[in-house]
């Protein structure tokens, strides 16, 4: 935070300016005040299946750190394995090269997964929910 921003916040704290004036001044400085509900990257991917007809419940919680580590590991695997594994996986529809490219954007991807919320209602009243927390 710059010195100017600190001064504005101090003036606000002392009651010399109003909150609206402080916001305007901060905007003019190019620093919007931090949002109260700043986005926190999710930690887990949750999959829940609830079938009330037969009482079955499935609850899976996968740490997203696995995704992070897996992509980092996957990015060096083709080089190590001489492309054999990559070729075999490509036949199955998994492109390791695309994983290598997604490496630098993984944090952005995980952050945006925080908004993921998929709900599926099955014909037998089963409910499937995929979300991040």
């Amino acid at each position, binding site marked *: 935070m710059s010195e100017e921003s600190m001064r504005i916040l101090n003036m606000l704290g002392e009651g010399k300016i109003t909150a609206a004036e402080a916001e305007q001044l901060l905007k003019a400085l190019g620093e919007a005040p931090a949002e109260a509900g700043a986005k926190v990257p999710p930690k887990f991917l949750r999959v829940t299946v609830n079938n009330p007809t*037969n009482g079955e419940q499935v609850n899976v*919680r996968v*740490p997203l750190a696995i995704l*992070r*580590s897996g992509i980092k590991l996957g990015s060096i695997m083709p080089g190590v394995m001489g492309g054999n594994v990559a070729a075999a996986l490509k036949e199955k529809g998994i492109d390791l090269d695309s994983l290598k490219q997604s490496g630098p954007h993984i944090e952005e991807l995980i952050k945006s997964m925080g908004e993921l919320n998929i709900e599926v209602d099955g014909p037998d009243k089963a409910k499937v929910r995929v979300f991040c927390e």
Partner: protein
Amino acid sequence: MIPVLLVGLRLGRFPLWLPLFLLWPLVLVLFLLAFPFLFIYSLFRLGLRAFGFWFLGLPRIYALICALRGLRVSVQSPGKRIAISLV
């Protein structure tokens, strides 16, 4: 980074906690003993890529084991319950 310390299993009504942290020192000792042989073998098998495997791949495999902490799978039906959790 701390690897998985405990594995919790629940088959039916009774929970079972397996202390995996007791296994890691043993694995480390065995690995250090076997490392020279494994490294020489990998040099023959992979050539210079062996360096990539041991010095880039191994820390990432370790990171993946650490990342497994918090994994939880639970399947429940009337009268049956199976749950696995890694702590």
